[in-house]
């Protein structure tokens, strides 16, 4: 009986991580920004039908980069988790923290147990209500690593560069149009052309909305916010 080749666990993890990172690096980037009235998500995504940013629950949004079918699976699993929890307890008991932990467990298990890791990074964002509760942004990597981010977050192809740009330019309590313009400029850092409203998918968790805070910003209003409307 031929013996399988021995591969050290270190090597195996390294190979898997490299594989996942390569897949993610090919993807386009997403930034999340806290602004005065909530959380803004800006994704480079020319498709208006296949979303990278979507609603999970009343105050919770999801964003994914990497392989579409993989983060789409995670998105639907998240909606199921949230809806079942909200149905059996109460709507207020559905939190981004519990969801982010569930994602982290799932991705961690897939990374260690499956031959092929998921080539995705995801963000789970929750907007605080008006009673001074803080916004929460969780960033979860392909191996289940979870970080909580403050003020801004970036993921995808050249996330480091974008993060450096945001570190220098981010301000607290921006108005929505300022935040949109900053987000677009941050994505432009890694481009050799400048992105128009047709290349972007933008959504906000708007604290001022009642109950379901998630709102997409479509191309026309987006152009107004970007200041590029003609």
């Amino acid at each position, binding site marked *: 009986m031929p013996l399988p080749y021995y591969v050290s666990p270190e090597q195996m993890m390294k190979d898997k991580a490299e594989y996942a990172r390569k897949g993610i690096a090919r993807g386009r980037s997403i930034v999340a920004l806290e602004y005065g009235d909530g959380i803004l998500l800006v994704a480079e995504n020319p498709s208006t039908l296949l979303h990278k940013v979507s609603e999970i629950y009343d105050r919770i949004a999801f964003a994914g980069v990497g392989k579409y079918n993989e983060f789409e699976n995670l998105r639907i699993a998240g909606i*199921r988790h949230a809806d079942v929890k909200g149905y059996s307890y109460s709507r207020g008991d559905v939190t981004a923290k519990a969801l982010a932990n569930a994602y982290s467990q799932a991705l961690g298990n897939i990374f260690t147990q499956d031959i092929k890791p998921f080539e995705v990074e995801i963000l789970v964002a929750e907007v605080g209500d008006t009673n001074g509760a803080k916004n929460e942004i969780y960033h979860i990597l392909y191996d289940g690593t979870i970080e909580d981010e403050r003020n801004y977050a970036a993921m995808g192809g050249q996330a480091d560069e974008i993060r450096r740009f945001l570190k220098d330019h981010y301000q607290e309590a921006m108005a929505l149009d300022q935040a949109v313009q900053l987000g677009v400029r941050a994505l432009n850092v890694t481009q050799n052309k400048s992105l128009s409203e047709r290349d972007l998918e933008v959504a906000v968790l708007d604290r001022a909305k009642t109950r*379901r805070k998630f709102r997409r910003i479509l191309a026309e209003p987006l152009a107004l916010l970007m200041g590029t409307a003609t």
Partner: protein
Amino acid sequence: MKIEGGSSFLELLQRDSPHLLPNLAVEGEVAASVPHGTTVLAMRYREGVIMAGDRQATAGFQVASRRMEKIFKSDDLSGIGIAGAAGPAMEMAKLFQTELEHYEKVEGDNLSLDGKANKLSQMVRMNLGAALQGLAVVPIFAGFDDKTNVGRLFKYDITGGRYEESDYDAQGSGSKDARDSLKKLWRRDMTRDEAVRVALEALIDAADEDVGTGGPDFVRGIFPTVKTITRSGFGDVPEEDVRRVCEQILNERMQSEQRS
């Protein structure tokens, strides 16, 4: 090949968490001791549909609650009014609302109005066993159809049978009286104010004739709920307006009573 998943919350519960589904396998007759919601109605008007309901829940000969809400928003363009056993009815409204939102989030698109009405009919049918033991739930479903740009309404029977009504309908213990009233007062193409008035007249008539139905309560400040569903969404008719119209109706009735 079977494609995994699906976008139905109800099917998700049936598959993964059947313990969360309402399952009322009761023995014997419990109906008399369980609170029942009484009168809800829906009718078309110029801009869409209007839904209204009294606020009383009745258990046998007792008032179980004076402030029960019977009209629920099921999504931006539709609402559900519940009559029958209050507990299962509220559970059904919540399940239905979650179902529509779940579908919308998973698919990124809304169900058609017919799709929503059909889904509700499956939920009513699920309750048939309990209905036969006296815990019937019979909702009214109304919404604005954004494909044909009209308001539409549906009524149900306990077996899940679904009947579209073109003008108006009422459900619950006072429904016959409310329907009689609507039959005389309802006209095509009413304005919002006219429709609110007709809805409240019908509910006051139902409260007058049916012991289970609660009328406007000026002592405690409890008034029927009235909701509108139009192109621009599901909206409340503010309580002050409802109060004012109720006062007007009762004053007019008092005057005509004194004249005679």
